[in-house]
C-alpha cells in the first residue's frame, strides 16, 4: 500500500515537473498508478470482502508516536474502487476532452495523479495526523486544479474560495483530531473508534471534526465553494467535485457515525444540516441553466442525502449510504462527462442554447438517460436500489423523528427527480421545442458533430455499471454489505433488492416520482416562485461577506495592536517582561527570602552610583546625556566586578561600555536631540513606572535566582577542566572559545548578520540625501 502511494507521489511530481514536454501524453502516465491500484484492489477484493483487514506501517517520527499507519477494510476498498475506478475512466475521457495543444495539460495530469494519491491516503490512513495531511493535500491539489487556467481571474477566485473554506474546515478538524487523540491516548483511528472516548472535550472535538466534514463535503452553510469549483475543466469536476474529493467528508462521517451517533447533539445536527443541504441544493439546482452548475448543486443536494444516511449511523442507513455512494459516483461522473461532451461538441452547456442533437448522438443520449434515471431514482437502475434502501432503513430505524426525516428525504428526492427531468429535457428536446420559460426555441438542427466513440466510452462503462447494479442488485449487495459490516461491526440483515414487495418504501418512491414529475411539468409557474429565492443570499455571497468582514476586523485589530508608536511597543513589551516572571515567581514558591545584601563596604558607594546613573538615564530628556548616564551605569558595574575579584569581566565591561557609548552617539546624531519635543508629566510618569517596574523585577529575579540554587554549580567543574581540556588558565576565555564555543560561534554569526542588516538599513535611509534641502545661509 505504501508502495502504491509512493508511486502516485513520484509519478505525479514527475509529471508536473516534466509536463511541458509530455503534453497530452502525460495523461497516459496518470493512468499508470490508477490502473495499478485498481488491479491491486481488484485482486485483493475477495479477501477484503470476507472481512480481512490489511495494514501497513512505516516509521515517520517514532519519538512522537507518529507513523504512517495504513489500514484497508471493506469500506476502504469500496472508496478505493471509486477513487481509482472513476479515476481511470476520467483520465481516458480527458484524453479526448482536451485538445492536444491544451496549455498546462502536463501539470493538470500530474496534479490529478497527486490528487488520486492523496485521496487514497485519506481513505487508507489509520493515523489521524496522516489522514489530516492527505486531506489537506487533496484540498491543495483541488485548489491548483480549479485554478489550472491561471489567467482566468474567476478561476483563481473560485480556487481560492474552495481552498479557504476547505482548509479552514480542515484546521478545525485538526484541532478535533488532536483533542480526540489526546483523549484516547492514540492517534490510530481504528483504536480510537474501538475505545470511543467520551466527555465534554470529545464532544467539542467531534463538533470540530464535523466542521471539517461539512466544509469538505459542501454541506450548508459551507457549500458555496462547490458550484464555484465548476471553473475547473470538466474532467476535473467529474473526478474531484462529484465522485471523489467531496466524498472525503462523507468518508470520515461514515467512520465516526456508527460509534458516535448516539452522542447527544450528533443525530439532530447532522440530520438537520444534511436535510437542509439536500433540499436547498435541490432548489438551487432547479434554477440553474448552466448544465454543469445544475449538476454541481445536484451534487450538493446528494451530499446532503449521503450525510443524513451515514450520519444516522445505524446498520441499515449506513448500508443504504454505501449503496448511494457507489450509485452517485457512477451516475454523477457519467453526467459530468456528458456535459463535457456537449460543451466540447456544441460549444455551449446552457440549457437554453443547446441545439437539438441530430444523428450520431444515440450513445451519448443513452448514457445520459440511464445516468439521469439513476440520479432521479427511477426503477431498474442503481439509484433506485439505493433510494429504496434509504427509505426502508429510515422507516425501520425506530428513531423518534423518522417521519420528519422521511418527509425531508422525499422532498429532496422529488426535487432531484425534477432537476434530472429538466436536465434530460434540455438535452433531448426536439428541434423547435422550448426548454425554458423565456428561452428561444432550440435552433434548427445545426450540424453538431457527434462525439467520437472513445470519447463516450468511459461514460458508457459507468452507465453500464449503473444498469447492472440496478438490474442485479445482488452484485452490489456483497460489496455494500461488507463495507457496512466494516463500519458498523454488524452484518446487515437486509439485502439490496429490486423488489421488496408492496411496502412503505415503494409507496414513498412512487410519491417522490409523482411529485418530481409534477414539479417538472409545472416548471413555468415554479420558475416564478423560485425566482423569489434570488433574494436569499447564495453561499458565494456569504463567503464574500465573511471574507470582507474578516478583512475589516483585521484592519481594526492591526490598527490597535500595531499602532506604530515606538514608546508604546517598548512599554508593552517591557511591562510584560517585568510582570510575567515576577507574578509566576510569587505564585509558585520561587522566593527564598532576602540574602545578605552588602558584604563589602565598597559596595555601598558603587550601588549608590549605579542607582543615581540609572535614574538619571531614565529621566533625562536629552538622548545623548541619557546614553552617557547609561554608560556610567556600566562603568559602575565594572567597579562592582573589580570589588568582587573578576578583573577580566571588569575589563570586558569597560571595553563594551566605551565602545557602545561611542557607537550609540554615532547613531543618535541622526535623531532629534530630545526624546520628545514636548514632554508631558503623564508621559514621564508612564516612563518612570515602566522603568521602575523593569528595574524592580530584574532586581527581585536576580535575588530569587541567586537564592534558589540547589544543584552543584557547573563553574566548579569548568575551572577544574579548564587547563587539562582547554589548555588555558583563563576559565572565562576557555568557556567562550572551547566549552561554549558553539554559542560563541552562533553569536558572532548573529553579529555579522546584524551588522550587514544595519549597513543596509543605514544606506537605504541615506539615499534621499541627494534631495536634501540646502542649509539656509547664516
Amino acid at each position, binding site marked *: 500500500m505504501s508502495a502504491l502511494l509512493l508511486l502516485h507521489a513520484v509519478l505525479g511530481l514527475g509529471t508536473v515537473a516534466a509536463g511541458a514536454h509530455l503534453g497530452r501524453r502525460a495523461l497516459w502516465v496518470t493512468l499508470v498508478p490508477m490502473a495499478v491500484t485498481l488491479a491491486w484492489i481488484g485482486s485483493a477484493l475477495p479477501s477484503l470482502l470476507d472481512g480481512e483487514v490489511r495494514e501497513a506501517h512505516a516509521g515517520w517520527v517514532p519519538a512522537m508516536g507518529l507513523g504512517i499507519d495504513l489500514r484497508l477494510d471493506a469500506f476502504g476498498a469500496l472508496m478505493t474502487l471509486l477513487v481509482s475506478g472513476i479515476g481511470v475512466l476520467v483520465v481516458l475521457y480527458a484524453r479526448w476532452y482536451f485538445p492536444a495543444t491544451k496549455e498546462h495539460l502536463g501539470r493538470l495530469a500530474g496534479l490529478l495523479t497527486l490528487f488520486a494519491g492523496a485521496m487514497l491516503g485519506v481513505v487508507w490512513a489509520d493515523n489521524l495526523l496522516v489522514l489530516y495531511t492527505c486531506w489537506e493535500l487533496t484540498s491543495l491539489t483541488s485548489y491548483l486544479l480549479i485554478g489550472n487556467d491561471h489567467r482566468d481571474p474567476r478561476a483563481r477566485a473560485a480556487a481560492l474560495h474552495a481552498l479557504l473554506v476547505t482548509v479552514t474546515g480542515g484546521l478545525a478538524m485538526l484541532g478535533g483530531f488532536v483533542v480526540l487523540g489526546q483523549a484516547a491516548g492514540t492517534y490510530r483511528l481504528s483504536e480510537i473508534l474501538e475505545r470511543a472516548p467520551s466527555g465534554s472535550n470529545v464532544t467539542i472535538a467531534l463538533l470540530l471534526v464535523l466542521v471539517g466534514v461539512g466544509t469538505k463535503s459542501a454541506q450548508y452553510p459551507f457549500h458555496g465553494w462547490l458550484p464555484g469549483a465548476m471553473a475547473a475543466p470538466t474532467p476535473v469536476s467529474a473526478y474531484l467535485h462529484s465522485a471523489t474529493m467531496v466524498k472525503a467528508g462523507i468518508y470520515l462521517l461514515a467512520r465516526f457515525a456508527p460509534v458516535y451517533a448516539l452522542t447527544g447533539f450528533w443525530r439532530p445536527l447532522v440530520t438537520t444540516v444534511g436535510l437542509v443541504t439536500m433540499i436547498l441544493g435541490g432548489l438551487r439546482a432547479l434554477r440553474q441553466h448552466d448544465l454543469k452548475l445544475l449538476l454541481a448543486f445536484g451534487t450538493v443536494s446528494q451530499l446532503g442525502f449521503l450525510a443524513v444516511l451515514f450520519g444516522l449511523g445505524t446498520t441499515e442507513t449506513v448500508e443504504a449510504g454505501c449503496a448511494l455512494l457507489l450509485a452517485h459516483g457512477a451516475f454523477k461522473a457519467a453526467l459530468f462527462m456528458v456535459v463535457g461532451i456537449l460543451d466540447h461538441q456544441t460549444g455551449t452547456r446552457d440549457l437554453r442554447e443547446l441545439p437539438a442533437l441530430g444523428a450520431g448522438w444515440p450513445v451519448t443520449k443513452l448514457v445520459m438517460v440511464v445516468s439521469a434515471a439513476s440520479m432521479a431514482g427511477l426503477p431498474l437502475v442503481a439509484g433506485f436500489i439505493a433510494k429504496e434502501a434509504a427509505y426502508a432503513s429510515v422507516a425501520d430505524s425506530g428513531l423518534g423523528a423518522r417521519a420528519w426525516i422521511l418527509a425531508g428525504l422525499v422532498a429532496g428526492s422529488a426535487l432531484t427527480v425534477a432537476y434530472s427531468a429538466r436536465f434530460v429535457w434540455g438535452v433531448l428536446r426536439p428541434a423547435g421545442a422550448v426548454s425554458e420559460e423565456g428561452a428561444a426555441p432550440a435552433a434548427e438542427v445545426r450540424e453538431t458533430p457527434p462525439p467520437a466513440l472513445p470519447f463516450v466510452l468511459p461514460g458508457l462503462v459507468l452507465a453500464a455499471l449503473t444498469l447492472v447494479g440496478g438490474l442485479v442488485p445482488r452484485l452490489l449487495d456483497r460489496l455494500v454489505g461488507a463495507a457496512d459490516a466494516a463500519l458498523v461491526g454488524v452484518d446487515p440483515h437486509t439485502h439490496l433488492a429490486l423488489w421488496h414487495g408492496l411496502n412503505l418504501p415503494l409507496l414513498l418512491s412512487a410519491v417522490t416520482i409523482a411529485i418530481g414529475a409534477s414539479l417538472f411539468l409545472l416548471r413555468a409557474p415554479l420558475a416564478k416562485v423560485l425566482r423569489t429565492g434570488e433574494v436569499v443570499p447564495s453561499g458565494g455571497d456569504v463567503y464574500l461577506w465573511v471574507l470582507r468582514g474578516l478583512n475589516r476586523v483585521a484592519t481594526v485589530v492591526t490598527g490597535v495592536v500595531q499602532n506604530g508608536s515606538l514608546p508604546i511597543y517598548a512599554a508593552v513589551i517591557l511591562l510584560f517582561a517585568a510582570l510575567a516572571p515576577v507574578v509566576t515567581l510569587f505564585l509558585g514558591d520561587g522566593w527564598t527570602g532576602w540574602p545578605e545584601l552588602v558584604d563589602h563596604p565598597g559596595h555601598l558607594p558603587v550601588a549608590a552610583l549605579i542607582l543615581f546613573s540609572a535614574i538619571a538615564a531614565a529621566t533625562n530628556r536629552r538622548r545623548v546625556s541619557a546614553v552617557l548616564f547609561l554608560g556610567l551605569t556600566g562603568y559602575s558595574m565594572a567597579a562592582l566586578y573589580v570589588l568582587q575579584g573578576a578583573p*577580566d569581566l571588569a575589563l*570586558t565591561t569597560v571595553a563594551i561600555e566605551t565602545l557602545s557609548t561611542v557607537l550609540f552617539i*554615532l547613531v543618535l546624531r541622526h535623531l532629534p536631540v530630545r526624546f520628545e519635543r514636548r514632554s508631558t508629566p503623564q508621559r514621564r510618569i508612564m516612563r518612570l513606572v515602566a522603568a521602575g517596574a523593569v528595574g524592580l523585577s530584574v532586581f527581585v529575579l536576580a535575588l530569587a535566582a541567586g537564592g534558589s540554587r540547589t544543584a552543584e554549580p557547573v563553574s566548579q567543574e569548568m575551572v577544574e577542566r579548564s587547563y587539562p581540556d582547554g589548555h588555558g588558565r583563563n576559565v572565562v576565555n576557555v568557556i567562550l572559545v572551547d566549552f561554549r564555543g558553539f554559542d560563541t560561534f552562533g553569536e558572532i554569526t548573529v553579529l555579522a548578520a546584524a551588522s550587514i542588516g544595519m549597513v543596509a538599513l543605514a544606506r537605504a535611509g541615506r539615499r534621499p540625501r541627494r534631495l536634501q534641502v540646502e542649509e539656509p545661509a547664516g
Partner: protein
Amino acid sequence: MRRILILDRSVRITFHALQIGSIFLLFSGHNQPGGGFVGGLVAGSAVSLRYLAGGLDEVMRVSRFAPWTILGTGIVVAAVTAAVPVLFGDPVMQASLFELTLPVIGEVKVASPLFFDVGVYLVVVGLVLMVIEAFGDEPQPAPEQLEEAAG
C-alpha cells in the same frame, strides 16, 4: 570637519599603542585576563578614537580591507578552526596544543582555540568598522533643523 591638532596627534600616537595592546590581550587571553572579544573591543575603541579625531576618512585609512571583508574573514577563520578537528576524527571544536620553537622568542605553546579567538577578534573589529561606515558619515541635519529650514 574641523580637526583639533592636539587630539589629532595624540590619537595618532595612542592608536598604535592601543592596537598592540589589543593584540596582546588577544594572545594572552587564554591564560590571563583578555581574549579575542576584549581584544577586538579595544581595537574597536582605538578605531573609534581615530574617528573622533579625523572623521570617516581617517577611519577608512586604518585598513586596506573593506569592513565586511574583515568581518567575513573572522567568521571563516572561526568556522575553519571549528571544523578542522573533524578532519582528524575528533569532535568539532576539539582543542589541541601545539608546541613550537620560534626564533628570538623561543619555545611557545599555542592552543588551537587561539585561532577561534582570532576569528572573534576580527568579527568585532569588522563590526565596529561597519557601524562607523554605516552611521559615521557627516551628520545629517536633525529633523527639527530640516523642518526649520523648510519653514
